């Protein structure tokens, strides 16, 4: 009798454990969290969110390092980061890796962020500033502080008319998850300040789901046959900005970048 009840209990434990393992996502979502619904029955991802990591400096794991200007001391040095790339280094093709290294060597001149250029996707999602998701039935928009960048996710699929910095995003729901498929990028944005780059064949598929009342799980699969040998993934939490009346603010940085972009064409050179 006792052996049988032990066997039954063990069996139940095994069944429950298997179900739990199957339900848990790679990003470690607690099983069973169901986001509140919007009135049209979809998971409510509205809010002001922000990544809290060092991916904008370098999406791969990296050590602390000096900044580009010794005059700024430790203030603009590079903080260390665990990285958000899953499973090993970014799988560059050999010639693309050479280009990445060249980008890195010249990053203080080449990083498009220096010119207040639109950050592209997925970089906009992990720049260290808040962004806001506004979710309607037909469109999900994300408004970012940096350079006032904005993404429109078309929930009724549409073809991109032309290439762009932020790409063209079509989205759909898979249960709790917002799946965003983005293509038709230009080849001009970088993934981070470390020179990680892509071509205009970049294809990003993001999966966003609520993991608790105050954080989302975010993952993105990145594919670019011109640059990488295979698709690869990034993943990270996105945290809700919980301050009372949290809002995104205007961060128009073009004026701050103009001397960098046009300074060499001044009639009277800037005094260095």
């Amino acid at each position, binding site marked *: 009798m006792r052996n049988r009840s032990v066997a039954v209990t063990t069996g139940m434990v095994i069944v429950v454990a298997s179900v739990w393992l199957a339900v848990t996502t790679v990003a470690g979502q607690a099983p069973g969290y169901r986001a509140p619904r919007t009135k049209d029955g979809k998971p409510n991802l509205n809010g002001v969110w922000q990544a809290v990591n060092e991916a904008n400096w370098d999406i791969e794991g990296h050590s602390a390092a000096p900044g580009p200007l010794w005059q700024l001391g430790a203030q603009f040095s590079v903080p260390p980061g665990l990285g958000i790339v899953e499973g090993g280094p970014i799988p560059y093709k050999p010639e693309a890796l050479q280009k990445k290294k060249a980008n890195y060597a010249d990053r203080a001149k080449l990083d498009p962020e220096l010119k207040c250029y639109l950050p592209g996707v997925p970089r906009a999602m992990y720049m260290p500033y808040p962004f806001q998701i506004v979710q309607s039935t037909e469109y999900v928009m994300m408004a970012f502080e940096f350079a006032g960048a904005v993404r429109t996710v078309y929930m009724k699929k549409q073809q991109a008319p032309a*290439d762009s910095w932020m790409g063209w995003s079509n989205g759909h729901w898979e249960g709790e998850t917002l799946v965003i498929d983005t293509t038709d990028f230009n080849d001009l944005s970088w993934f981070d300040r470390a020179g990680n780059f892509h071509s205009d064949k970049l294809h990003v598929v993001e999966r966003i789901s609520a993991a608790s009342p105050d954080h989302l799980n975010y993952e993105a699969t990145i594919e670019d046959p011109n640059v990488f040998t295979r698709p690869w993934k990034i993943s990270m939490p996105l945290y809700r900005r919980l301050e009372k009346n949290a809002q995104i603010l205007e961060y128009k940085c073009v004026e701050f970048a103009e001397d960098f972009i046009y300074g060499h064409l001044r009639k009277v050179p800037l005094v260095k």
Partner: protein
Amino acid sequence: MRRTFAVAMTGLALALAAAPLRAHHAFSAEFDVTKPLTLKGTLSKWEMINPHSWFHIDVKGPDGTVTEWMIEGGSPNTLIRLGVTKYTVKIGTELTIEGYQAKEATNKAVGRNFVLPDGTRLFLSLGSAVPGGAPATEPVKP
């Protein structure tokens, strides 16, 4: 058909647009009114970008060498709402550009007119841009 630009004043004061063309005066600083040109070439790329789009044209010289020119055109955003996409103007399309050369470089210009081999102007011939306007609709009651 070119005719002299005439300012026509009537009993009804012309209701001009509230916001003037901000960048208009800058064009004569960017491009040289004393250097008009006509180029003939094939399209290698149309950068559908803002604030102005740029056409990359391969122009064959008399000695057979090919030079790439960059020709400035208009913002693509309204054309996109009229149905134009990056597939509309095919790579290799023959274009005659009537325009003015840039003050800073030899192979940049603004395209006053982009003319197709049949003599019609780009986008007008594709039926996308509508000279004379979108169809009038009833004015909204104030």
